[in-house]
């Protein structure tokens, strides 16, 4: 045991020092947005500051299969059930399922849906732009629905500010990234910087009129956001999937990537989908909101919509499934198919 003291003191000093530094920067490892978390940039730089509307938690509860008027199958844009609250508020009963819960819109979707006891007329299929192609291909290949419901996510609470805390080393790295960003973004010709492989910071034209965060001239985006428009074959794939639905009325909602809204708004896919399937033109609606001066439509720190943006989306979708629109839409969809 000659070296036990050396051994112990070595461990205590190294871990103690790491702990002291790590704990000092730990507050920086608390992230509200997915982009600040992945990009490891502090919320004090990119966290939104303008208040957002609150949602009554009662509007976030999912209806049972038997009582639902509308079924939503979606990704993380639907998972929080915030846009659905706009429908629930107007008296519709909405059930939400994730794409992962059903594994896709498989060949047996209609009989499977009937077997669940669903008597509603509409199914809203929501997909984010960057996943549209891969998700549609997966759906086309899917033979059998393998349903596995999510457990315990029927919300009874709502918060605009949900902070998740990361590890101690993340706090230290966040501090280093913040210093790097301050240095790089101060350069005159700064346009873009990639803090991590998953995210990029982009200078936004008139950014401070669009965002409320401290560094409002810049916003964060996913690196995997699509730059180019979606091919026409995407629209054909949707027609094939619609043919699996029988008497169910589908409503395809394609969420533009955040980059599409702010950096590449000239894409034509949404116009084509609207013409062919009467799909809600989310891109146009969001661009119009920006033109009206809506701040933090997408918060700078998040790849998802703000509560304001979700409510706009909910209103748009409601317009498409409200009874006044249903007859026309059904006719259009059938003609296109």
């Amino acid at each position, binding site marked *: 045991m000659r*070296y036990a003291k*050396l*051994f112990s003191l070595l461990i205590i000093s190294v*871990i*103690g020092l*790491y702990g002291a530094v790590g704990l000092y920067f730990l507050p920086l490892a608390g992230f509200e947005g997915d982009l600040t978390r992945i990009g490891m940039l502090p919320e004090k730089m990119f966290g939104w500051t303008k208040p957002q509307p609150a949602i009554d938690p009662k509007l976030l509860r999912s209806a049972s299969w038997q009582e639902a008027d509308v079924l939503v199958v979606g990704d993380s844009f639907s998972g929080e059930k915030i846009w659905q609250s706009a429908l629930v508020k107007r008296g519709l009963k909405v059930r939400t399922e*994730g794409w992962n819960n059903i594994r896709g819109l498989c060949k047996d979707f209609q009989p499977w849906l009937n077997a669940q006891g669903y008597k509603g007329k509409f199914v809203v299929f929501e997909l984010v732009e960057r996943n549209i192609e891969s998700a549609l291909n997966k759906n086309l290949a899917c033979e059998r629905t393998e349903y596995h419901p999510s457990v315990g996510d029927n919300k009874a609470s709502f918060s605009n500010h949900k902070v998740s805390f990361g590890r*101690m080393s993340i706090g230290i790295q966040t501090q280093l990234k913040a210093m790097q960003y301050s240095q790089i973004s101060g350069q005159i010709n700064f346009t873009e910087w990639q803090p991590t492989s998953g995210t990029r910071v982009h200078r936004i034209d008139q950014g401070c009129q669009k965002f409320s965060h401290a560094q409002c001239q810049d916003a964060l985006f996913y690196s995997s956001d699509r730059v180019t428009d979606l091919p026409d074959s995407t629209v054909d794939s949707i027609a094939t999937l619609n043919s699996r639905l029988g008497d169910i009325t589908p409503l395809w909602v394609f969420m533009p990537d955040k980059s599409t809204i702010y950096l590449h708004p000239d894409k034509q896919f949404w116009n084509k989908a609207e013409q062919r399937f009467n799909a809600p033109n989310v891109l146009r609606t969001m661009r119009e909101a920006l033109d009206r001066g809506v701040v933090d439509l997408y918060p700078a720190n998040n790849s998802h919509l703000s509560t304001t943006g979700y409510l706009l989306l909910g209103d748009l979708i409601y317009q498409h499934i409200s009874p006044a629109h249903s007859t026309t839409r059904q006719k259009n969809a059938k003609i296109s198919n």
Partner: protein
Amino acid sequence: MLFNSYAFIFGFLPVVLLGFFHLARVSHRYAAAWLALASLFFYGYWNPAYIGLLLGSIVCNYVFGLWIAKNRVQESNRKPKIQNPKQLLFVAIVANLALLGYYKYANFFIGSVNTLAGTQWSMGSIILPLGISFFTFTQIAFLVDTYRGEVKEYNFIHYVLFVTYFPHLIAGPVLHHKEMMPQFARPSTYRINWGNIATGLMLFTVGLCKKTLWADPIAAYTDGIFAGVASGMTPTLYEAWCGALAYTLQIYFDFSGYTDMALGIALMFGIKLPINFDSPYKSTSIIDFWRRWHMTLSRFLRDYLYIPLGGNRKGKSRRYLNMMATMLLGGLWHGAGWTFVIWGALHGLYLTINHLWREAIADKLPRLLPRWLAALSGGTLTFIAVVVAWVVFRAADMTQATTMLKAMAGISYYPVTFSEVLTGKLLLTTDLSGRDLIKLLLPGLLWVWLLPNSTRLKFLGNNLLLAILQAAAVIYFLYLAIEQFGSYSPFLYFQF
């Protein structure tokens, strides 16, 4: 406060350790009192309201202990006594069990009565104080031993410390005063022993790694599969086995991880706690398993339940009855629920079969199998029996347990082919990745089957290079384990 938290590792532990050895230079009494106060703070960090309950329980049991001891001495000296010590012991044990019964079992019994009789009685929601089963059992053992005349020391500070000593207070090991009180009284405990600190640091690191690198990640899969079954889904055969194996590893790494940390921390303070696990999944029989799993609870149940019930002294049939009663109560000790009772009954049945086998067949027949093959087949059978019982232990109710067990037995399961499993359909009741689960399951199983028990770990300190290499390894693994912090992750045995 959790061992696996920043507050404990970077705040509480160093402050208490420094304070203890600093005060020990002035007075051993001060150092012991400091440790007792720190232990109460540790307990109260969770819910200060229950410090009163803990202190009340300590003071009452200490007073009862003194009273029993005094009357026992008077009885043995044939002096006129005030109270019969046996009656005092009875009252004290009933009071302890009443406290435990109220907090842990009242709602369970009322619920069961309501189900049977169709009544609607209610006691409202009762919050279970942390560690109540542990500190109640520890003190019952103290009272019984006082009555038996086996208690030698009644120093109040040492008694408070014996009950509250923070490394064991919440989830054991279940301590015996005989192994603790002499250590608190020994002067060498109050001197820094760098060898103990070094080994303690190593043991703590192994325990922390078990918890954060295995138990917590694998818990997501256990929860996912059992939650899928709870929501009405039928698992595949492969998935049911994966869920059962995942929980088998989770509970071992979680509980033995906690115990390793407790032993390691105690050792830094110069205190040796009893071993609680001895590689239980290497057991070659169920009898062997109960000598290796939660050893201090097995010891308690044997000494204070099985033997007082008559043990094996009153004939064979009574012996099996005693064994079954002990295991049923051992099951109920884990929680107020029928799944725990059935888990205890299953192990009681296993033990009975194991003893019958030994008496009727194994001891009478010449060895037919080579030793290694007998150990392998015994070990496999024991492991499967233990895994099956864990399914009942983990399930929220017997319906869920039955669904899992039917799928494991191939009676009723969601059909998938093996080639589908290989192409990504291992898990269907949850969105989690089957490939990632296998990455945890396989090394976890290899660990529990092949590696030596963590308590064999010892600092090798006679070579400078070796000491530095060991320090580097401990720092690396501590870093890895600390990097997993960030969300609240209590130990499974806190609920028992």
